[in-house]
């Protein structure tokens, strides 16, 4: 196997009032799409922020992209190569217009205005968002903000994606669109999600944070008997079940 992209060894982190992470080891290899699970407040977001040096561990080592990272200057390079998508899009989008927001990252990385604009246009195009190009960021809908936030991260052309609840609070159609898009990206990623569907579709590995410890979770599919509540209404996405494990419905023909 090739060199791991990111490696944590014995990382501990405390908030003033309570310990969050205790002796965490974690490795992210190329091609992996890791689901990070755990109950609310388990420290999942903190773990992502540790990976890009937004918070510093009390103990332990962080290796990223072939070298140990300690100082703020070390992490500046990490942040360019590992893009973090924040839980709240309003935190991420602060520039006046969509185009400027997406160009902000590339400009910081030293691209010229023309190059940054070209990158922004390309990313918008890939995400089928070109029509939002000149929109004012704070007037976008929740789903649009989420997709544009992802575009701002992708514009930095990161090697690793760190996604904090990427499909949180999205309607079914947008959720599906985003999931499909993420699935075809070549980057290794770590994502936090309580969305079972997203985990099943996207992840090829899963870890779980429990009482400050990170454990490898076993991923398996099994047919299970369960009842579904379907809502039929105009405007709701069709409720077909594309998941392989879900071929056990009461009704036939699915």
């Amino acid at each position, binding site marked *: 196997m090739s060199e791991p992209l990111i490696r944590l060894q014995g990382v501990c982190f405390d908030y003033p009032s309570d310990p969050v992470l205790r002796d965490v080891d974690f490795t992210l290899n190329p091609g992996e799409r890791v689901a990070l699970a755990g109950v609310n407040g388990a420290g999942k977001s903190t773990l992502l922020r540790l990976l890009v040096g937004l918070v510093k561990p009390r103990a332990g080592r962080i290796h990223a992209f072939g070298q140990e990272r300690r100082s703020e200057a070390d992490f500046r390079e990490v942040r360019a190569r590992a893009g*973090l998508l924040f839980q709240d899009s309003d935190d991420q989008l602060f520039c006046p217009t969509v185009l*400027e927001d997406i160009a902000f990252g590339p400009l910081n990385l030293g691209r010229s205005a023309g190059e940054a604009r070209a990158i922004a246009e390309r990313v918008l195009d890939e995400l089928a968002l070109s029509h939002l190009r000149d929109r004012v960021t704070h007037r976008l809908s929740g789903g649009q903000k989420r997709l544009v936030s992802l575009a701002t991260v992708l514009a930095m052309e990161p090697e690793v994606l760190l996604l904090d609840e990427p499909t949180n609070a999205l309607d079914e159609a947008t959720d599906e669109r985003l999931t499909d898009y993420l699935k075809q990206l070549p980057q290794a990623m770590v994502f936090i999600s309580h969305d079972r569907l997203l985990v099943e579709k996207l992840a090829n590995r899963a870890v779980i944070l429990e009482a400050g410890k990170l454990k490898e979770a076993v991923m398996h599919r099994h047919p299970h008997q369960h009842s579904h509540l379907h809502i039929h209404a105009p405007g709701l996405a069709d409720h077909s079940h594309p998941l392989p494990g879900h071929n056990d419905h009461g009704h036939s023909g699915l």
Partner: protein
Amino acid sequence: MSSLPLLAPLATSSFLNTLDPRLRVLLCLAWTGSCLSLERLSLQALAALAALGVALLLGLSPRALLRRLVVMEGFMLLVLLLLPFSMPGNPVFTLGNLEATDAGFARALGILFQAHGVIFMVLILLGTLEVVTLGHALARLGVPDKLVHLLLFTVRYVQVLYEEHLRLRQAMRARAFVPGTNRHSWNSLGWLLGMLLVRSLERASRIHEAMKCRGFHGRFYLLDDGAWGRHDTLIALAAVPLVLVLPLLESVL
């Protein structure tokens, strides 16, 4: 979620929107200068009327105009009530031991006319611009970057904070809170304010983190492709006599 009404640009005729935003800022500045240089009451009144005429002619709806004016009129009322009593001059009438003077009245009226002359023009020329566009125009006119970004950040997050405020207020109402003049109300509103402050601080630090994640190192960038056209130059030239006519009249009369 409802949006802050004052932040939305006013509707106007399409002609105005073909002008370069920089021209609109410059025209507004020129008009303000000319308006404030007037000393005769009659000319000041004429300026206010002219500005109102221009605003209506360019498609500002009277209703929208009134709604924006309300914000300013409270302050104007204060000026109108206080100024007559605070200038030396010939007494017109007395109230207790306060004297309202003719000079005071004249000054109050003058301020009223001039303020309206300026505000009508600001509303039609700048109030109809998206604030973001205004920010870009200011930046390209050489206003310091820091000020422009301060404006743009404010516009960006005032809305978010307002929505947070609305959510908290709704949560309070959902639990049967009715504001009154009692200790409980003041306490609760205090908490609401405190909570907003704490949330704003937390949001600010999250935004800063998000910016650091995208390689922020103290520089902001603006991209825009507004271009000064030939018709902008023509309009600018045509506006010169209009802006100058009142000050000229003043010096002739």
